[in-house]
């Protein structure tokens, strides 16, 4: 089966985006001084994290809320919690 790249896969899903309250925040000082691996760029199954001019930027809108990044990331660099109730991904199959 021909599988589309991640944005196409995420396009299959339903998200209730909470633009006013992003649920991911990066402490760039910690991120840029203590992390050498930048695993977030590869482990996130939704490609939430991208790098722009050396800085990691999260796109919180299409997050699958698995929590992988929190475990892979160096402590203190990432503030991550679940989106407010009713927001975020809504699986129709699961």
């Amino acid at each position, binding site marked *: *089966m*021909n*599988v*589309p*790249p*991640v944005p196409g*896969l*995420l396009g*299959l*899903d339903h998200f*209730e985006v909470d633009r006013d309250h992003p649920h991911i925040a990066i402490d760039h000082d910690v991120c840029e001084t203590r992390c050498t*691996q930048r*695993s977030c760029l*590869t*482990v996130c*199954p*939704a*490609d939430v994290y991208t790098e722009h001019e050396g800085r990691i930027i999260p796109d919180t809108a299409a997050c*699958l*809320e*698995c*929590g*992988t990044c*929190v*475990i*892979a990331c160096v402590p203190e660099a990432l503030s991550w*919690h*679940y*989106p*407010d*109730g*009713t927001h*975020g*991904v*809504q*699986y*129709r*199959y*699961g």
Partner: protein
Amino acid sequence: MTGTTEDFDAIVVGAGPAGCAAAYRMSMAGLSVVLIERGETPGSKNLSGGVLYSAVLNELIPGFYETAPVERPITRHTTTFLTKEASCSLDYRSAGLGAPPYNAFSVLRAKFDEWFAGVAEQAGAFVMPGIRVDEPVVENGAVVGVRAGDDVLRAPVVVAADGANSFLAQAAGLRPRNAPKDVALGVKAIIRLPRHTIENRFGLVGDEGAACSFDGEVTAGMMGGGFLYTNIDSLSVGLVVRLDDLIESGAKASQLLADFLDHPLVQPLLRDGELAEYGAHLVPESGSAMTHRLFTDGMVVAGDAAGFAINSGLVVRGMDLAIGSGVCAADAIIQAKTLGDFSAHSLSAYQDRLEDGFVLKDLHTYARAPHFLDRHQLYSTYPEFLTQLLHGIFATDGTPRQHLVTVARRAMNDSGLRMSALMGDAVAAGRSL
């Protein structure tokens, strides 16, 4: 809603199988229970990478499959070793598994969890979907409720059934944050197909279903495996890979999934299917549960939150352990209520019940499985050996045939498998699985 009086006998956080089972059981015993779920509907945040082994649910709710939105009773289990271009399978089928009370079902969690929460609600539980619990409320060292935004709900006991990340159990000091070796990342696609196509393609009669696991090429040599389950009119296809391996390799789970779905021997199973959903979820590594504390003053932890999952390499279990632990949690709390004592000492009955029942017995039985499965030859050398061995047996190219021993020796040489390693792995497999 803030106060110092207790709003409920028990607060259950998370309306997955563990939380729903606990809420149902306690409600049936007459306790006032609130079941809080962050998804807009129960199940909308949940994703399964396994099938539901259903004996425990059938004990809790006899004949549940008559009304529950299960997909297909599983009558066929296959395990396939994959290399880049060949495969070798074990295929177990039994008509007996297709008769009540059944053995296992494929389920889609958005439907199944919503049903289960509804059953708990009918039993008297107050179901509150769309509410994210932020933290436990702790007073004098005991959990006395939960905070959700500006609201505080109070109860003498909280069941943390909030999934593999369990921020509640972490905040209550019951477990540290997960390390990459403690979890695996699962990614999954739902592929829609007409039901008769599924039945024809997988050799199924009527409502019967198949559960297929895949080892080898699927995870590019990393610890983990692929799965495919038949639903009524869709397939759940995905893979699970341990997070420490994934981080180290720099591979992307989404790409592994795309490669799996495009594998020349998997692709025909999916042909003409329509992609309908993509999801990701963490899975506790079996064995991680052994290191967690499961109760404290005013709190017990159940299901994925407690790390209750088993991956034996052949069988992946989570939902049945979740339901079993939810029942044990409920029974311990019902007992604690009659004693009027929700201290850790009283709630230790939860641990006793888990150890007396199948949950911790099974986790102990498979405790060495993760260690065994952490042998990278399982994901590369063995699939290569098996497929080369069978190639040597079945492929005739006009050259004279060799005896089986000679074919096996050549397959071992070609795949880099050593006899001493094979013997060691066989012994370890016998002990661990």
